[in-house]
């Protein structure tokens, strides 16, 4: 009986996985890729390389993706559909770079100041979306999304004109002082930025499971009407949550600047779709905090793995996006139902 029960629980997942596998296989066959090479190339590209160089690449992606996922998760669990992570990320990255470039002083202090500035910038940008919703009636979903664009272009302008490193010939800021660059783990090209992500993750876990504020925001997320009825300060919770979530996004921006590019390059935080990957990483695990880092690593591996697959078997690495989307379609439609209800939109679910 029990066995039968577990059977019933497991079977749909097996079927889901089979579906996903089938679709990926179909894509590979479509491009006529040699399966063996493709798969080994994927594995190599995600975890292999000389001295695990590719694994390091995967980890350094993980740092950013998981960071964004954590940021998004805090909003989602509070029932705030903040998909403006991209804007908050950019705001953070730009603030970090400019602070580090313009602020004189001992490197460590500059670094700390820059990181704080990044978090502040991210928080403010997220708050803006919150204010639009609470006081202007602009749905957070749309407001936060549209706010991505202005900040993206503002940043682009900043590094294209006033703060541009002209001789470099690129649309990018000057380098941040070399002393502020995040160190690499000995013998690798992986910077210690991932430690910041781990810290943020730890914070998020404690916050979600064991703090009063986290508890209240969770209730608000599950039912805003309920939260209001039992007298929780819904508006304040909303703004505070957005601020926290934005601050973490900003932190991620700083990690990208000090750990990877050492300056702000136009588009460096937007084009890799870090924010969107973060969102789907959260959706994949239905907003369960402890699982978020894992799914962040998973998607990072999918992306670097795809690049490996391209090198090894000539499969266009764009397949990564497709794989991610397919996984979300199949898996997330099984686990996360708690979103549209917030918008009070969508057709009536069971």
């Amino acid at each position, binding site marked *: 009986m029990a066995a039968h029960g577990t059977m019933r629980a497991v079977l749909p997942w097996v079927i889901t996985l089979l579906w996903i596998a089938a679709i990926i296989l179909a*894509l590979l066959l*479509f*491009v006529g890729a040699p399966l063996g090479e493709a798969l080994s190339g994927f594995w190599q590209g995600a975890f292999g390389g000389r001295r695990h160089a590719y694994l390091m690449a995967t980890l350094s992606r993980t740092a950013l993706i998981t960071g964004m996922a954590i940021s998004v998760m805090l909003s989602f669990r509070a029932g705030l*559909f903040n*998909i403006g992570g991209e804007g908050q990320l950019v705001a953070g990255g730009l603030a970090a770079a400019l602070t580090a470039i313009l602020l004189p002083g001992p490197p460590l202090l500059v670094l700390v100041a820059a990181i704080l500035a990044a978090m502040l910038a991210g928080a403010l940008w997220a708050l803006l979306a919150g204010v*639009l919703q609470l006081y*202007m*009636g*602009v*749905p957070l*979903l*749309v*407001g936060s*999304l*549209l*706010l991505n*664009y*202005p900040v993206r*272009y*503002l940043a*682009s*302008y900043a590094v*294209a*004109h006033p703060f541009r490193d002209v001789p470099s010939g690129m649309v990018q800021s000057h380098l941040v002082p070399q002393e502020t660059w995040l160190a690499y783990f000995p013998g690798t090209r992986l910077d210690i930025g991932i430690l910041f992500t781990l810290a943020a993750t730890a914070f998020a876990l404690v916050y979600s499971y064991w703090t009063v504020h986290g508890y209240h925001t969770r209730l608000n997320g599950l039912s805003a009407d309920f939260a209001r009825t039992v007298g929780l300060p819904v508006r304040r919770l909303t703004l505070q949550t957005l601020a926290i979530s934005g601050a973490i996004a900003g932190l991620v921006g700083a990690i990208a600047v000090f750990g990877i590019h050492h300056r702000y390059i136009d588009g460096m935080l937007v084009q890799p779709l870090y924010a*969107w990957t973060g*969102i*789907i990483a959260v*959706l994949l695990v239905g907003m369960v905090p402890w699982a978020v880092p894992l799914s962040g690593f998973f998607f990072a591996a999918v992306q670097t793995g795809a690049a490996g697959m391209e090198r090894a078997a000539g499969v*266009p690495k*764009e*397949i*990564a*996006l*497709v*794989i*991610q*989307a*397919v996984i*979300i*379609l*199949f898996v*997330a*439609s*099984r686990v*996360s*139902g*708690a*979103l*549209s209800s917030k*918008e009070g*939109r*969508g*057709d*009536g*679910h*069971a």
Partner: protein
Amino acid sequence: MLDLLLDPSFAASIPRFVTPILLAALGGALCERAGVFNIALEGFLLTGAFAAVLGAYYSGTPYLGAAAAMAAGMAMGLVFAEFNLRRDGDAIVVSIAINLLAAGLTTFLLRAIFNVTGAFSDPAIVGFGAIRLPLIEDIPVLGPMLSGQSILFYAALASVPVLHVFLARHRLGLRIRAAGENAEALRAGGVSPRRVQLLALVGCGALCGLGGAQLSIANVNLFVENMSAGRGWIAVVAVLLTRGRPWPLFCIALLFGAVDSLSFRVQGMGLAQQFTDMMPYLATLTVLIVLSWWRARRARGDVS
């Protein structure tokens, strides 16, 4: 500034920007009215744009290109339905996934089929030509706007009243509205709301597909990665603002389209490119804020 607004080529450029947004928004309206929260218009548009090029390239005629675009859009609609309606996936999650799917699939196929990245352009891609309306083209400002556009533009114009009448008087239109407002009642009446919503999604896909075709085989004759570049989201906003009512939708789309094309013109006036790039989104935000704020004020009188 004024001379710029009177510049016929500016007037002529507006429809090129309005058409994709309008078509996508009309599709979105179908879903909105049917109670499907479809914010995947961006993905639908992009898919359409790609399929249009594919069709036009292999068939050699833009009409089959447009047909392919519609078909691809409908297919996306079916995917949406499968996961949102049948598998009960959250509408927003499904939308995000479909947007990613479209971005991924188009770039993937671009390389898999044409073995290029970034953009695909080829003389074999035959686009829609301009249709000149003899008398109308002589009207001062409206002339160049109304005449010399692609057939898709006229199709978009026509769909506004058509959709209006359809929703008001057609059996399916009636049921779509019911599915959006009180699906349970529809069920009690023996009509499956899901089926109605499925049809709405397919219709949405077709319209978005055409919108995509306008982007890729009417505005130009080539496909560029991420060609929809946020227009689908602007359409979403237009739908939310107007709650899917065709005529107001038309006005909003017109406004957004005009700003979009204006943003190119003002660059000539020495405004930094980044700021002109910003204009459409700022305009959208502004309209959104003003209307929402106004609505909120008006609604304050009500319960809830």
